[in-house]
């Protein structure tokens, strides 16, 4: 097929200027984008893919600069265009980024800002026409009640909705091509899958060519016509997706493919079932937690946000227990209950035989020593102006190790264990990578020699390679110290790799608890199936997204509908689901699920049916 490319990039080099001289972030990249083509660019974090995608839309600000090369659109190099003409071209060149929440002015309604963009670029369109077009497009990206959403502010949109609004913003002027930089990265898996499906549809409908940049090969594999592999700023391989996956040419691509987590294949990791015996280490019983939030614009009326509802489970010594669910499902509140940052409104959390709500002072300190927490954000969880040795030694001081020499000895020992060089002892955490920072976080928790580590999204900020290394470290530590882990995560693939038993949460409730193999091969709850169908993977899926994937988003935990919390999105919901709340029932020997469709679920009582 011979067609004139819309966009051609030749020998593009972008460098970072610093006092020591320049460093190339993107080197000698050349590519062509044919009309209606979807080109995928894949690279790990730090491969320069974001800089490349910004360069394609001429959005390079100091200290970055275009060192050489050209991006040609309509026979002109866009880097040399005067600002006025470049601005006019923005009508045809669109970009969607990875940070939907920050992309629009927080003080103005979303719809109005999109109209503002249309009017800036297509002045001949009247305001009323522009508004009509925006509302049409909002409906096209399946934003519910678009006409009223038009007048809402960015803070009133969830991440997934905002990302869809930005797709509307990008497509509002009928661009010739669109650069999508990691658009699904901040989204939950089921929402990310919806957004991807939508982008494919829309680009077909609007005849838009797309450069799709991502760090996830499975996501690109589904949609791209051609995939370029970017490593250290250079394109090392270009192939059509199937060929790339089956016969990668470059060692980097091979490595990238090998790092994609295996879920259902024969080579997938098998996490053994751990015999559950003795007394549970942690036992949470019928815990509820409700937050009271003052209603906007009222005098004294409060909304109840029911974050955790009737959660019960046991964790046994030596287990890796996973808690999964999408944002807003209550898993972080659960973490706060388990670590006694908060206490349940009713129900109890029993750790090592003690109800932790009743612990005070010395007993509480003893509890904290045994149950340590490792947080999600590697950047904000470390004080920037405290040396690493002091950060890790802090807990020792709190727990009464007075001697500085003793502390230093223990800190150095634990630093070696987690793989931090002892030369870092007096350094500040400023120059550390995300992976190293998480090691500091783990060391800080480990230095007290705890029994349980609660990992709240600890690996979410890391790329696959780093995740692998840390998981290896966790398993070594577990063998050595007999640790019990609780992994709180939204990443099903990570949980598949390490957890013996997994609890799935939805709207504050545990909807399923099952052993690893049972959960991934024979889940009992439709929500678990939806989560599984949305995992980005190259494998043939056990659960077809067409069948299982959800529309819409979870309802707000403020106005809970009666009956099953999942009924509003469940493809299999029937009458009973909307009146009665299902309880966890055994689903085979290895799991429990809260769904009326579980075979062991007792039939609806006659009286309730009559009523």
């Amino acid at each position: 097929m011979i067609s004139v490319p819309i966009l051609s990039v030749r020998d593009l080099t972008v460098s970072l200027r610093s006092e020591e001289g320049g460093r190339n972030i993107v080197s000698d990249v050349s590519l062509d984008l044919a009309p209606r083509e979807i080109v995928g660019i894949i690279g790990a974090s730090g491969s320069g893919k974001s800089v490349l995608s910004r360069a394609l839309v001429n959005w390079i600000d100091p200290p970055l600069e275009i060192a050489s090369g050209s991006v040609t659109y309509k026979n002109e190099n866009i880097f040399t265009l005067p600002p006025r003409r470049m601005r006019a071209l923005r009508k045809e060149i669109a970009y969607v980024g990875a940070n939907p929440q920050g992309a629009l002015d927080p003080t103005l309604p979303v719809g109005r800002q999109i109209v503002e963009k249309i009017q800036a670029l297509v002045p001949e369109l009247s305001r009323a026409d522009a508004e009509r077009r925006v509302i049409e497009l909002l409906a096209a990206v399946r934003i519910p009640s678009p006409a009223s959403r038009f007048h809402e502010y960015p803070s009133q949109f969830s991440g997934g909705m905002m990302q869809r609004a930005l797709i509307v913003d990008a497509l509002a002027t009928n661009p010739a091509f669109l650069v999508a930089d990691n658009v699904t990265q901040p989204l939950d898996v089921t929402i990310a899958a919806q957004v991807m499906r939508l982008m494919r549809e829309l680009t077909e409908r609007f005849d838009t060519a797309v450069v799709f940049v991502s760090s996830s090969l499975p996501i690109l594999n589904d949609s791209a016509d051609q995939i370029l592999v970017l490593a250290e700023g250079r394109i090392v391989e270009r192939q059509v997706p199937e060929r790339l996956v089956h016969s990668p040419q470059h060692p980097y691509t091979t490595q990238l493919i090998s790092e994609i987590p295996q879920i259902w294949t024969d080579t997938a990791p098998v996490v053994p079932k751990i015999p559950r015996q003795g007394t549970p280490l942690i036992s949470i019983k019928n815990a509820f937690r409700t937050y009271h939030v003052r209603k906007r614009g009222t005098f004294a009326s409060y909304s109840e946000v029911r974050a955790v509802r009737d959660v019960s489970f046991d964790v046994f010594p030596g287990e890796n227990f996973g808690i999964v669910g999408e944002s807003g499902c209550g898993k972080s509140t659960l973490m706060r209950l388990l670590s006694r940052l908060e206490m349940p409104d009713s129900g109890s959390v029993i750790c090592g035989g003690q109800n932790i709500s009743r612990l005070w002072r010395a007993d509480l300190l003893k509890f904290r020593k045994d149950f340590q927490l490792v947080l999600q954000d590697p950047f904000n969880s470390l004080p920037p102006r405290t040396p690493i040795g002091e950060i890790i030694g802090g807990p020792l001081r709190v727990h009464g190790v007075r001697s500085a020499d003793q502390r230093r000895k223990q800190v150095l020992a634990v630093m070696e264990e987690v793989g931090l060089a002892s030369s870092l002892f007096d350094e500040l955490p400023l120059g550390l990578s995300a992976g190293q920072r998480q090691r500091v976080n783990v060391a800080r928790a480990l230095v007290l020699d705890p029994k349980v580590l609660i990992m709240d999204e600890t690996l979410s900020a890391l790329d696959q390679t780093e995740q692998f290394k840390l998981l290896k470290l966790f398993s070594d530590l577990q063998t050595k110290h007999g640790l019990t882990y609780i992994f709180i995560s939204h990443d099903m693939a990570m949980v598949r790799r390490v957890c013996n038993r997994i609890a799935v949460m939805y709207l504050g409730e545990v909807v399923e608890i099952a052993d690893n193999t049972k959960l991934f091969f024979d889940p009992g709850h439709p929500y678990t199936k939806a989560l599984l169908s949305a995992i980005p993977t190259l494998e043939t899926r056990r659960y077809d997204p067409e069948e299982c994937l959800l529309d819409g988003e979870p309802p707000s935990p403020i106005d809970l509908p009666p009956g099953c919390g999942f009924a509003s999105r469940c493809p299999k919901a029937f009458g009973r689901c909307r009146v009665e709340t299902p309880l966890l029932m055994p689903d085979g020997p290895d799991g429990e699920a809260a769904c009326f469709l579980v075979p062991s679920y007792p039939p609806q009582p006659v009286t309730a049916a009559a009523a």
Partner: protein
Amino acid sequence: MALLSFLARRISQGVVIIFLVTLLIFTLLRVVPGDPVRLMAGGMAPEALIEEIAKEMGLRDPILVQFGRYMTGVVQGDFGQSFTRPASGASTGGTGFGDSSRGDRADVLTLIGDTLPMTLQLAALAVIFALIITFLIGTPAGLAPNRWPDRLAFYVSSIFVSLPNFWLGIVLALLFSVKLGWLPAIGYKGFAYTILPAIVLAIELSPVLIRNLSGSLSAVMQSPFISFGRVRGLGRRRIVYGHALRNASVPLLNLLGIQISGLLGGVLVVEFIFDYPGLGLLTINAVLQRDFPLIQGIAIITSAIFVLINIVVDLIASTIDPRLEY
């Protein structure tokens, strides 16, 4: 509905604040040295007469009893009468104490009512001038951090903040009234008399506002939606005036609410220097003459104004930025 409940909540809070301010002023006035009766009756009046007048005026009752009596009046809209000012004219001071003039002393509310509009006019003009100066100097500074407009703003605000207002008032009066004859300075015979004092007040207000605006504007200019706005095809002018200044004005507005409260101190001095017949001048004289009812009345009215200003500021801020709860 939301607005009404907001107003109800804030006004009830305001009433509590005003009550506490009144109680504080009332108590302090009676605790600190300085007997109003001695000033009214004059230095030569015999001690017995002073005690008699004081008793008659209720000034020897326990403070809480006096306060209760006073607040009963205030709630009914009666702020009492001035100790020293006759209804007809100027302050009598302490020299000419006579029973005849005590019958028709001026109502506190009338005194305040005559002077308050003058001060409001002065304050409003001062705030307008201050905002003009702030936006003219602060906007370019915020758009070019660490470059010359920013440094200029820094120098200008450093100079402004170091100028004592009494000195500046005198110098400006000398320059524009005496030397150049462009503007009148002393007293009040028309709107032109407000301009010079307003300029002095504006110069006092603006340094903090300039720093605040340039600081928050340069912070807003770093936000992702600003640089993304360019990629979306918005023009520079639209981005700066339509989005950046809009966001940067919220902290400015909150600061302005506090600054206006601080304006009173400046008003005292500036009105005194320019002999401007406003609330400030009235306050100074009331304090010098230990005119308790007048001081209390002024305290109540000014604290009510501060409460109102802050309610208005919060209302405007939440219309600009809907994330702010009111």
